[in-house]
């Protein structure tokens, strides 16, 4: 596997301009001769499909949901970063670039991150022009707020629903292209394989989730924008349908998978209430502006009502450990501290997995009405889910899997190691290193879709020439047969266990051994447990019903099997990365105070895994990261 990042020559600020000039173009009249497949309709896929359609390509776009508007980008709450410097507070492209590289704990590629910062302003302009109702100041100009990991206010937002509004913007542009016939939208279609012809991705195989029809589609290029793999942990803030299947099957066809061990755990989620739990709900990070995090000092107090625990018997551990950042310490650090408190038997609520987020001081200081105005909708959501009133009793929160920084490896052009297969958004690994800053996911999805892929895919198409293969040809037939066989295999499995029970058990293993803190012996144990679970899956799975209609159990079985394979890969990657960085915390590598210790000498690289066939050990390749514009430093929040 050759990992050529294809970073253009020139100084950092000139690279993208130079590259745009040197890339080949497709003549406007010739664009209609090219067919492009886009899988996924979230911020990255939706914006890519809309833009490519607008340019005149023939686009087929696929999503598993019943409408492209439902992709999980819709659930992003906080905002989107843009280096506009509208607040005149010292922001710049270079500052956004630097904050992102530092926030990622120096494990991302400089050139990609710089380009992201360069186009961030265009994204805001584009979204405003589409009619995205961003928050405004009284003078009518755009409002900003600040977010974690930055000292400037560069986050644009639409109440607590920024992801929804940006996605609906992309969806409206996509709808316009669908109406014009330039994009053909295939809802409720799940991609089950990539078809490779002469070493290039030239099509996909899908299953129509309503009719069960398994079909082949050919194209000149395939774009995957299929999101992250957080659901490998079963419980996460992802939508229940989010899965790794498309990315993992592309991986099996030759696309290298980079840094699967980089997962982000968000500190403020509503804790698990019982075994029935199917997903975790995020409470916006903004709550930590006014809420104080604490646990009882004495384990004997954990079952007491919080108002029975006097001030001196409480440990405000973030304020104690990180006096300068206090309750606003970054996500990875806050999450680990909560785990540590609960591991020490100080957790509160069911199962002792929770810490208090207490607003009583803020309510005393500003009054309940002010807190209601700031966070009313979040308090309401908390009450809906827990049945508790957070104005009179502290919230209980606990960390949860939220985002995955790893993904299919891509070069500067967003092309994977499988030629012709491009990967956008959370599905790729490119911009966030080992930890993502708040309000940067939306920025990356739209940057990839609106402003990067239209140029880079044109270069590829112009080099290759038009000529999508026949979707009924022998290679496509063979791929279809393989998918059919796999689907038939699930349906004829005569066991007793539901796919959900396997997914759940996998989630327990992942969370226990590859969650907030990891160590070598735990990861080795996890790999063994997952292998046993896979064996059990192949023997004892049951899938009811038929393949020719809507069958959620069948869908889940297929996704679960990929999660099992992928979970093992994630643990393997975590085991090999013998350092702590960002969201990846190895207990062997910490300071006496429990802070993460990076090993830049040996691990300043992206780890890229090559699939060597089912049941065979994958190969770990390296893309060395070169930092020419930032100095590697220890992240300190003390």
């Amino acid at each position, binding site marked *: 596997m050759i990992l050529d990042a294809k970073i253009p020559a020139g100084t950092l600020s000139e690279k993208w301009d130079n590259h745009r000039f040197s890339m080949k173009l497709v003549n406007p009249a010739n664009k209609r001769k090219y067919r492009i497949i886009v899988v996924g309709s979230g911020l990255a896929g939706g914006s890519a499909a809309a833009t490519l359609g*607008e340019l005149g390509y023939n686009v087929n776009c696929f999503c598993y*949901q019943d409408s492209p508007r*439902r992709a*999980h980008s819709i659930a992003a709450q906080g905002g989107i970063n843009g280096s506009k410097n509208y607040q005149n507070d010292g922001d710049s492209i270079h500052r956004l670039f630097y904050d992102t590289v530092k926030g990622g704990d120096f494990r991302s590629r400089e050139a990609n991150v710089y380009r992201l910062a360069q186009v961030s302003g*265009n994204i805001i302009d584009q979204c405003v022009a589409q009619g995205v109702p961003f928050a405004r100041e009284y003078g009518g100009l755009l409002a900003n707020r600040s977010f974690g990991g930055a000292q400037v206010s560069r986050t644009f937002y639409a109440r607590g629903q920024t992801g929804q509004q940006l996605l609906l913007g992309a969806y409206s542009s996509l*709808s316009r292209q669908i109406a014009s016939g330039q994009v053909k939208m295939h809802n409720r279609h799940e991609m089950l394989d990539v078809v490779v012809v002469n070493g290039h991705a030239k099509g996909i195989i899908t299953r129509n989730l309503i009719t069960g029809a398994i079909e082949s589609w050919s194209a000149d290029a395939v774009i995957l924008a299929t999101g992250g793999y957080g659901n490998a942990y079963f419980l996460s803030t992802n939508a229940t349908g989010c899965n790794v299947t498309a990315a993992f099957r592309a991986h099996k066809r030759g696309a290298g998978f980079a840094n699967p061990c980089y997962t982000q755990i968000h500190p403020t989620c509503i804790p698990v209430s*019982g075994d*029935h739990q199917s997903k975790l709900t995020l409470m916006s990070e903004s709550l930590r502006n006014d809420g104080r995090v604490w646990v009882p000092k004495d384990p004997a107090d954990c079952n007491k009502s919080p108002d029975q625990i006097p001030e001196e018997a409480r440990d405000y551990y973030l304020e104690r450990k990180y006096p300068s950042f206090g309750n606003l310490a970054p996500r990875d650090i806050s999450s680990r501290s909560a785990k540590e408190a609960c591991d020490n038997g100080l957790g509160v609520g069911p199962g002792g997995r929770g810490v208090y987020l207490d607003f009583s001081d803020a309510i005393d200081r500003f009054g309940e009405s002010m807190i209601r105005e700031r966070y009313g909708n979040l308090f309401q959501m908390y009450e809906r889910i827990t049945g508790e009133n957070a104005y009179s009793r502290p919230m209980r929160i606990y960390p949860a899997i939220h985002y995955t920084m790893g993904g299919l490896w891509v070069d500067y052009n967003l092309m994977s190691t499988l030629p012709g297969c491009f990967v956008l958004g959370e599905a790729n690994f490119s911009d966030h290193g080992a930890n993502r800053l708040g309000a940067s996911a939306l920025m990356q999805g739209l940057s990839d879709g609106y402003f990067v892929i239209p140029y880079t895919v044109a270069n590829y198409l112009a080099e290759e020439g038009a000529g999508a293969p026949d979707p009924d040809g022998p290679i496509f037939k063979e791929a279809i047969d393989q998918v059919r066989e796999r689907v038939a295999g699930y349906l004829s499995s005569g066991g007793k266990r*539901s796919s959900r029970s396997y997914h759940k058990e996998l989630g327990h293993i992942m969370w226990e051994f590859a969650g907030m803190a990891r160590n070598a012996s735990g990861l080795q144990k996890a790999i063994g447990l997952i292998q046993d679970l896979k064996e059990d899956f192949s023997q004892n799975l049951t899938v009811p019903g038929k393949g020719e209609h809507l069958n959620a159990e069948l869908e889940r079985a297929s996704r679960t099997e990929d999660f099992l394979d992928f979970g093992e890969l994630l643990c393997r990657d975590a085991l090999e990365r013998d350092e702590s960085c960002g969201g990846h915390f190895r207990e062997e590598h910490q300071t006496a105070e429990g802070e993460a210790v990076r090993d830049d000498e040996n691990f300043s690289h992206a780890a890229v895994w090559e699939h060597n066939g089912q049941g065979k050990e994958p190969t770990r390749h390296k893309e060395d990261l070169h930092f020419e514009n930032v100095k590697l430093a220890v992240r300190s929040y003390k």
Partner: protein
Amino acid sequence: MKLQLKIWRQDGSEDPGQFEMHDLNGVSEDCSFLEMLDLLNEQLLENGKEPVSFDHDCREGICGTCSLTINGLPHGPEDSTTTCQLHMRKFRDGETITIEPFRAKAFPVVRDLVVDRSPFDKIIQAGGYVSVRTGSAPDGNAIPIAKQDADLAMDAAACIGCGACVAACKNASAMLFTSAKAGHLNLLPQGQAEKDQRVLNMVAAMDEAGFGNCRNYGECSAACPKDISLDFIAKLNRDYSVASVKKILS
């Protein structure tokens, strides 16, 4: 909790459907409604029966995928709440709960509780956008928008496209949905150039998809999990009248 569930089962859009009764024990009141259905499905699987199909995805009240008419109410008894955020503590131990799909001619049943809401996409495709090419946008601050206008547009834009408004309306009208998108864009300066054409085309698409007429019953807004206001229907009617008159005069 112990529950008796009266659930609609239907193989496909062409097949007849019927209610089926199921007993479910040991439901925690901290369960969400959909987690309760997960539990039922695991029980059905154990007994070698086919699970109930229902739509769901984000389970945090924003994607608009979940539906269900629960005891006659779209998204169930709790105000401003989608089915996925409805929790079992809102029901009584021993209660019989009736669960049906969203019922509307324009939303045919796909299977069990799953319906086809693609006509909503068709309405958006008819004009629920601002025609702006990627890369051709002016600076974001080039057009100041008064805060109250932006806030009002946001109130409309909060629609999640779930279809509860249609299911609640005895005419199965899609006016609240259509007016939310038209209202959002028509309130903003960016949406002015296409304002008239937008409302004419979106309303035509709505009629073509087989949704009924609006009679101002107001059930739609009462059922809306995002509290979209009836004012937007009034605005749509006004914008539609103006556009129609302009069309006649031109």
